[in-house]
């Protein structure tokens, strides 16, 4: 068996899952399952939310250790699912490592949906969350405008390589100020909280919240608290943006 390729495969699967927003314990579990197919004495994986350390050792071979730093992260549940499927097949010996490695390599840069669809769905998320919160047709159409502003900020983030928190703050600031101004023009000030709350929903750190809870339950307190902090900081940046937008609207003419 090619142990070097096995470790490479394991670390690649782990990297894909970690980059796509999988829970830390799931990444460790997947890596160790893949390494155990070698039936060697010692297979260990240590994963944090920013890197992976893997060791494979046995009296019959030289120990193999690899470190993989993971810097960029973007949520992509399709890749988590696909990498999980490949490792399942590998562990139940339905495919060999030689087949699995190229499959994972191919998966690494795959995007499940085209960018325009993601942008369109960001807008729709904002619109339908106002419907969920019992907003009217006018609320939904204002949320549509807010969604377009948010997509503008997302495009800006890609172009200028801004930090995610700055984008969140800028988007929620624009959303708040836009809503306040439009509502005062329309003389229709009742559902402001529904419009703003619905519009910020696409930015909510859902992945960080869920992973914080599930990692902590697994006893991985380090990753759990890191994710909890991430969720808190994103929520705080959104709140700060809304606060700034609302108070600016207030000073512009007592629109609150």
């Amino acid at each position, binding site marked *: 068996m090619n142990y070097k390729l096995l470790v490479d495969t394991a670390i690649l699967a782990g990297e894909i899952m970690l980059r796509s927003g999988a829970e830390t314990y799931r990444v460790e579990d997947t890596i160790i399952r893949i390494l155990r197919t070698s039936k060697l004495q010692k297979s260990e994986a240590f994963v944090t939310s920013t890197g992976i350390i893997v060791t494979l050792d046995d009296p019959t071979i030289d120990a193999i250790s690899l470190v993989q730093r993971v810097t960029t992260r973007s949520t992509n549940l399709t890749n988590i699912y696909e990498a999980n499927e490949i490792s399942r097949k590998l562990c139940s010996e339905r495919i060999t490592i030689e087949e699995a490695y190229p499959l994972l390599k191919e998966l690494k840069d795959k995007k499940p949906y085209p960018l325009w669809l993601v942008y369109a769905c960001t807008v729709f998320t904002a619109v339908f969350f106002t419907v969920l919160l*019992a907003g009217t047709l006018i609320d939904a159409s204002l949320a549509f405008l807010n969604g377009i502003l948010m997509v503008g900020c997302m495009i800006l983030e890609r172009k200028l390589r801004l930090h995610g928190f700055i984008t969140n703050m800028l988007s929620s600031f624009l959303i708040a100020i836009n809503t306040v101004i439009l509502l005062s023009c329309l003389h229709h000030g009742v559902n402001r909280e529904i419009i703003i709350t619905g519009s910020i929903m696409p930015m909510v750190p859902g992945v960080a919240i869920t992973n914080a809870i599930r990692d902590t*339950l697994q006893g991985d307190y380090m990753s759990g608290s890191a994710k909890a902090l991430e969720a808190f900081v994103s929520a705080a940046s959104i709140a700060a943006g809304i606060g700034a937008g609302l108070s600016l609207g207030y000073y512009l003419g007592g629109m*609150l």
Partner: protein
Amino acid sequence: MTMLTQVLGAFVATIAFSIVIGVPKKFIVNTGAVGGFGWFIYLLFQNIGYGVVLCYFISSIMVALLSHSFARIRKAPVTVFLIPGIIPLVPGISVYRTVYNIIINETGRSSYYLAQTLQIAGVIAIAIFIMDSIFRVFQK
């Protein structure tokens, strides 16, 4: 009637959000169902007259239960269903009210809503904890 519109809104909103975070195409309808069902339970218990935090607790339990069931049936990681499904229950409105009351200098009300936000976040976490633990017992 409004309730039906809201539940449909939750269904479509969850699907749209699922595409943003890249849920595989074949699970899109399932995630929408989880989100819509969670919001339906929330509205149902709210109409019966339960308190806000309890409503969030019961609906998060149902969302986690449904996510775990779908994960078993469709052989996929639970997160694929749980992350989009729990999104309608994230207490955005309490956060908004906290900020709004800070801006208009209603300190008392803003701390009330801050406490409510933290309580809701806490019960969602406990609900996910409980369902994870229950399903781990049945796992081989």
